[in-house]
């Protein structure tokens, strides 16, 4: 014990406290509370469950499918579903179930990579703008305004056409077009967290900027960033599907849910071969829906204002 400590002699009990509200020793960290609230949300739990299944199916695609991804059986083209090909075959005689499962890998990873990319850009720019303010803020916000003004899909289509359609370009295009929301969000979070007294307290104890940003501001802004990135991931999957459907996204033979659907642009396929477009379309819908449900559930779990 230092000398400093021994100076305190009086018993503080007189001041009185310690009638505890939570007597068990369980420590309720903020993360635990969010999880507890999230778990109560049935719809969000169903969403997480479906999402989990889709992810497992995508991961296990090589194990689950008896066919090679790109193997063509030219004698078995455009076959309707049968016991051999549960979802039939496409115009090149490839097994559709196989392609749909592999397509899930591609579509989900495009969503994940693109939304991670936008998150990195958005968080860096947003925190710089929010923390330092002044001219840097003005500059970043002007850039954000410009990107927000992009006619989103038109530019994505144009860029894909110009840069050449491929899975990587699709990820890059979506990532570079969607970071503005995260940037604004992080900036707003930083601006409001900056007003919190605990930031002043950290300054008053002599914490440097790095410590304030990393230790105090980012962890408090993290939850909303994650929510918005989840929701942006859903958007990214939709955009990938749309680009690929138009032939401007992921390129065959690599399958993605969007490009499996591409043949449905032909009226003959649309009219006569439902197995070519219905399953991948449905899977896009289900996966985006489940991600959105999870994101929505997270938002409710994090915003106690909306619950009473």
């Amino acid at each position, binding site marked *: 014990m230092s000398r400093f400590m021994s100076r305190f002699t009086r018993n503080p009990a007189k*001041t*009185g*406290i310690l*009638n505890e509200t939570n007597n068990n020793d369980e420590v309720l960290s903020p993360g635990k509370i969010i999880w507890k609230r999230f778990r109560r949300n049935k719809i969000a739990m169903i969403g997480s469950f479906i999402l989990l299944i889709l992810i497992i199916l995508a991961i296990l695609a090589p194990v689950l499918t008896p066919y090679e991804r790109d193997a063509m059986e030219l004698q078995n083209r455009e076959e309707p579903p049968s016991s051999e090909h549960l979802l039939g075959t496409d115009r090149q005689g490839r097994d559709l179930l196989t392609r749909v499962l592999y397509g899930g890998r591609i579509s989900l990873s495009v969503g994940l990579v693109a939304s991670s990319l936008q998150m990195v850009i958005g968080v860096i720019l947003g925190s710089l703008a929010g923390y330092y303010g002044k001219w840097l803020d003005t500059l970043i916000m002007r850039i954000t305004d410009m990107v927000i003004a992009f006619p989103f899909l038109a530019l994505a289509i144009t860029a894909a056409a110009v840069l050449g359609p491929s899975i990587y370009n699709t990820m890059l295009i979506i990532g570079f077009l969607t970071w503005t929301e995260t940037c604004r969000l992080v900036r707003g979070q930083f601006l409001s967290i900056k007003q919190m007294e605990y930031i002043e307290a950290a300054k008053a104890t002599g914490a440097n900027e790095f410590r304030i940003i990393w230790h105090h501001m980012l962890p408090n802004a993290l939850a909303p960033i994650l929510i918005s990135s989840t929701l942006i991931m859903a958007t990214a999957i939709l955009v990938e599907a749309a680009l690929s459907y138009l032939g401007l996204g992921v390129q065959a033979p690599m399958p993605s849910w969007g490009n499996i659907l591409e043949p449905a642009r032909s009226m003959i396929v649309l009219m006569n071969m439902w197995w070519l477009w219905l399953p991948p379309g449905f899977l896009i819908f289900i996966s985006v829906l489940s991600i959105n449900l999870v994101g929505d559930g997270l938002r409710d779990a994090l915003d106690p204002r909306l*619950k*009473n």
Partner: protein
Amino acid sequence: MSDLLQVKNLYTSFNTEDGVVPAVNGISFNLKHGESLGIVGESGCGKSVACLSIMRLIGHPGKVEADEIKLDGTELQALSEKKMRSMRGNDMAFIFQEPMTSLNPVYTIGFQLQEAIQLHQGLNKEQSQHKSIEMLEMVGIPRAEKVFSEYPHSLSGGMRQRAMIAMALSCEPKILFADEPTTALDVTIQAQILELMTDLRQRINTSIIFISHDLGVISEMVDRVIVMYCGIIIEDTDVRTLIKNPRHPYTIGLINSKPRIDVELERLEPISGSVPNPLNMPSGCPYHPRCESAMEICREKLPENHEIKDGHRVCCWLFSELGGKIKS
């Protein structure tokens, strides 16, 4: 004087995700014609909720139950929603704590005043405008005619609270609930509003229920006081007795923990501990964990009301024969 308002065994609870929160736990009181009654207590003691329950302004997920809520002999609980609406703002009016957020930002002061006047008094546009401006003048708003067509954001907090008072009094209610009307205001503005309210009280015949956590404000504004703690009334008496001769340990603690501007105190005597979590109420008397005179029975049973003197009720085992017996 006869009773204007009779409340018997009022219970209000809120169903939350974490469990049922009992906000008001069986309170009974009366208000006489022309009387002003103060309700004192710390935040969360249920004083506002009690008044909102009487006005039937508790929304989802709240639940109100009572044996009796009578205004001028009418059982309010038996009234249809439509009938109740016709009494709200007309027979019963409410002034809220936050003048900055209690007025609708997108409508003018005049519009919001006229609304109630037209609804309840059947006046036409011109008459109600005339009446509104009259009301604004009455509450001491300068340039009332100009303020009439202004939006709330252009007024200061004090002025907005005056406008709220004008709105509440515009239909000459029988009873006025003032829920901490000066808490959000600075002390010099609070003085203005309190003076205005005292002045108005002498001019119009309205009974007032004045909610506050500040015993200083209460002792200036009311005749009789109810002290609430954790949703129950623990003491009920006239203001003079309450301050000069409080009996419940909580009331005594409350008075002793407040420094005074007119007297120098060597040391403050705070109440130890803090208000219990409403989801995890202690058994027996809710005050017993903080009470220095707590006895065995206080842990077990909620005390009954004891009228220790004419019109002085205390809810504490210290004043009951049963409690006394066990103590000895």
